[in-house]
């Protein structure tokens, strides 16, 4: 059972950026008529999202977020002992992106650097690994860089996915020696649902060739290549409906908390229809569920840190918050932690 407890480790700072370019669903020509457009926007709750310029990657935005964090927090870069990069839109298939960020950030060669590839549960999973590293004697500070550029993998002729996804880059600093801080993580997987959200082409199972790059008509008049993100909305919805409330209740049980004592629930910003439904099922008042998806869309694994940065400074008390990630894999997890002393750097544009 992957239930993890860490003492005296905490997030000490967070930073995030979004691209300047705005894609407004109200102006998108993907919808067949105005009434469909209105209904989709009302249901998914996404008015607009951001997208990067060609040539800009998730790691570029993560680099900018990390630079901002290290500079504003006056972090001694020689104290960073591990750097973790988590994304599904890494720079290359190989090598890993984390070492390049070590070099760009001017960190020493004795930093442990590696990538993690997970979907929308990624922030919770990645954070658990950073907390574990930070708990090891000798590791002082861990830098967790998490960003996505789904604008590069979404088909603009796919009515299901195109209105949803946005780009973002985030940086989280994790440190030990934080007295009276306890964090809990509870992690889950169900690989039998691996086909529900996927980019099929370009990996070892389906190498790219002239066939995989062909734009083809798929279900419901949506057009994609095998290098575009595919989502089976119904199966993902059913998965989230069943597993997310279960996992939240399980975390409350394991930590002897009730939902009232949790100040805020930072859900992965999938779409408003889904998260509202989950909150309703758990009887969580909506004012305890911060959102930024109206402005930035679903930024996949980076949606939780982006929401903390974008909304966190206006929230009253972050001493006991739950992070809830869920998505492709299928993979999901929750974390319960204290962000009251985490320094949140103002969101900026890349």
């Amino acid at each position, binding site marked *: 059972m992957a239930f993890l407890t860490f003492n005296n480790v905490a997030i000490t700072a967070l930073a995030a950026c979004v691209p300047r370019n705005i894609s407004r669903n109200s102006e998108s020509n993907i919808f067949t008529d105005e009434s*469909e457009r209105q*209904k*989709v926007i009302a*249901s998914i709750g996404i008015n607009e999202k951001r997208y990067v310029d060609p040539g800009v990657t998730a790691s570029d935005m993560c680099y900018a977020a990390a630079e901002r964090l290290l500079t504003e927090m006056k972090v001694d870069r020689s104290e960073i002992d591990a750097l973790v990069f988590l994304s599904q839109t890494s720079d290359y298939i190989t090598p890993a992106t984390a070492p390049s960020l070590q070099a760009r950030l001017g960190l020493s060669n004795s930093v442990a650097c590696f990538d993690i590839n997970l979907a929308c549960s990624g922030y919770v999973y990645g954070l658990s690994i950073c907390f574990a590293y930070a708990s090891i004697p000798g590791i002082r500070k861990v830098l967790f860089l998490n960003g996505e550029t789904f604008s590069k993998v979404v088909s603009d002729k796919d*009515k*299901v996915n195109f209105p949803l996804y946005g780009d973002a880059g985030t940086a989280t600093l994790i440190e030990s020696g934080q007295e009276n801080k306890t964090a809990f993580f509870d992690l889950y997987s169900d690989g039998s649902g691996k086909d529900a959200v996927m980019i099929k082409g370009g990996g070892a199972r389906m190498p790219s060739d002239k066939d995989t790059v062909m734009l083809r008509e798929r279900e*419901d008049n949506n057009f994609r290549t095998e290098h575009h993100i595919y989502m*089976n*909305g*119904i*199966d993902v*919805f*059913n998965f989230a*409906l*069943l597993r997310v409330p279960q996992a939240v209740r399980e975390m409350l049980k394991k930590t002897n908390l009730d939902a009232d004592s949790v100040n805020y629930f930072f859900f992965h910003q999938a779409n408003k*229809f889904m998260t509202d*439904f989950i909150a309703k*099922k758990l009887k969580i008042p909506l004012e305890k569920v911060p959102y930024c998806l109206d402005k930035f869309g679903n930024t996949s694994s980076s949606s939780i840190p982006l929401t903390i940065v974008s909304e966190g400074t206006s929230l009253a008390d972050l001493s006991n918050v739950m992070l809830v990630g869920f998505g492709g894999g299928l993979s999901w997890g929750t974390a319960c932690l204290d962000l009251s002393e985490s320094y949140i750097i103002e969101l900026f544009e890349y």
Partner: protein
Amino acid sequence: MEKLIETLSEIFEMEPLNMKPTDKFKDYEEWSSLVQLSLIAIVNENYGVTITKGDLENINTIQDIYDFINK
């Protein structure tokens, strides 16, 4: 069945009186991928039953939904 039609009338934005058990609901004007999710959500919430994508391929009429819920 009346209760089910009442519930479905909300998501299809139709008058319950204009809906019959034999209706093929995928032919309704309002049918869309979003309405699919609403249907799944409402059945899950009101009846505690999960309709998968595969199930939905074999569910064509309102009677089929009724039978699926009461299976």
